[in-house]
């Protein structure tokens, strides 16, 4: 709810600015870019957590590359800085599909007691100030670089452990938790104008989601849980833009 409010207010301010700018200054042209991107990352990280005092457990992560989809709406104002250089500044809101994480649990942090599986999911949303520089030097395409800095909301949820043996009972689940973190993106690509208003682009974007963590299980005496300090993702960004 809180996130939605922030996004709504920010978009409202941006759109108002676009209208105001469009009416009063032809040098600032509003631009809307929608992108849909196949993305991938390898977020797993083996770590040892003290689930109780003197009781460590090692969570070994399956080092698989997970595929997901990232979508982004980037609303900005475009300004020609120099004859060959265009700049876009605005706000971007992005969200992803679910990424599964899983691995094994070594009880007592000992590989001899690799008795449980664990799995949970993460999803990322962010709101960021974003800038894009386009080189208007070629007739066919416009190369660009982009970057953003903002606040990310990393939601870790649906954690569960499953026993591999009848004798070993499942352990209490960590709770779902949203971590607010600093997030940034860096990108580069090519954009091609279809006409005076519409253009399409293809590029690569790197994202650091920042920290993600699950909440401690209710039965735990400590607050320790599974944490990922950074999740680095890569995406092939396919975009379509409209310049007013």
């Amino acid at each position, binding site marked *: 709810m809180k996130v939605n409010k922030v996004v709504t207010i920010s978009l409202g301010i941006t759109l108002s600015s676009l209208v105001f700018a469009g009416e009063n200054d032809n040098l600032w042209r509003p631009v809307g870019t929608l992108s849909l991107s196949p993305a991938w990352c390898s977020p797993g990280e083996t770590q040892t957590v003290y*689930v*109780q*005092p*003197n*009781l460590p*457990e090692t969570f070994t992560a399956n080092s698989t590359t997970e595929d997901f989809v990232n979508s982004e709406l980037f609303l900005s104002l475009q300004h020609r800085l120099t004859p060959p250089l265009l700049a876009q500044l605005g706000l971007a809101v992005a969200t992803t599909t679910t990424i599964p994480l899983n691995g094994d649990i070594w*009880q*007592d942090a*000992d*590989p*001899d*007691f*690799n*008795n449980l599986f664990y799995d949970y999911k993460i999803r990322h949303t962010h709101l960021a100030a974003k800038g894009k520089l386009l080189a208007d030097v070629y007739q066919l395409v416009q190369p660009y670089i982009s970057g953003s800095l903002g606040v990310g909301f990393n939601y870790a949820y649906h954690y569960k452990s499953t026993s*591999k*043996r*009848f*004798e*070993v*009972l499942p*352990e*209490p689940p960590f709770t779902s938790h949203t971590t607010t973190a600093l997030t940034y993106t860096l990108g580069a690509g090519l954009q091609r104008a279809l006409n005076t208003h519409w253009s399409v682009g293809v590029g690569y974007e790197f994202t650091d989601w920042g920290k993600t963590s699950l909440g401690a*299980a209710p*039965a735990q*005496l400590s607050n320790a849980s599974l944490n990922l300090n950074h999740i680095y993702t890569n995406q092939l960004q396919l975009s379509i833009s409209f310049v007013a």
Partner: protein
Amino acid sequence: MTLKNILKTLVMITGVYLLSIAYVKAQPPISMMPTTSTTIQNPNSGTTLIEYLITNQMKNSHTFAMVTMAAATQNISTGKCANPFVLQPQSSCLLSLEINRNQLSVLEGGPKVCVTKGPNDNSPGSYLCTQPSQTNIPTVTTLSPNFPYGSPPTGNVCVSTDYYATPETMLGSWAMIQATTMDTQGSVLPSFLSDTNTVYAVGTAALGDQLGIASCSGGCNQLNGYCFALKFNGKTPYPYMIFQSVNIGANPDTFDIYMAGGGSGAFPAPCQTFWGTGGAVN
């Protein structure tokens, strides 16, 4: 075979080997091996003793406690696992449970042992919780009216060929006739038993092992007073016998039935006194 194929095969074999090692090495953090029978015979009353040897397989010492178990009471007397109990690596203790036979309907699964919640809380936590293997959890077996149950009687039975010493011998007792008739009228007996197919008898039931009672294979005082429904396979009339164990000391896994005016059990010599030595006596 090309070098590439050979390398591929070697990588696969190594992978399978490593996986198999990982699989074989996994084991419960504590082992729970039964030292008594884990089968409880129902219906009955009283208690059944079930014990497990608990061994800490981990490399660290931990404090454990048993999760409260319906129908079971932990016996924490000297020599048994206390509550909680501390186990050093590879050390063991005997988890002793008294199962209340009157509450068998709520008995579910086996005992569960967990690490305690912490230094200041000795109640069982939610981590490293272990239970016996599926084959070693307590099981309740129920005598079915669909006999046969058990095997034909064998042993030193003094039986005459003219059927003097058969279950019907019991019918010679006025009390017996009255008892079966009254119990039938009072619906004390299961519906398939009646005064026309059932006799009563007493003797010794040496079935402690089957009933989960330790050190009772040849019968014991704990079984005194217990009643059993027996069936003589293929016998008519009177195929059923309600049998009460009133003594100890029979051969393991047998019922020693005291027959009025009939056999003399494990001491066949008096048979001659009762029945002579003719060919009709064996």
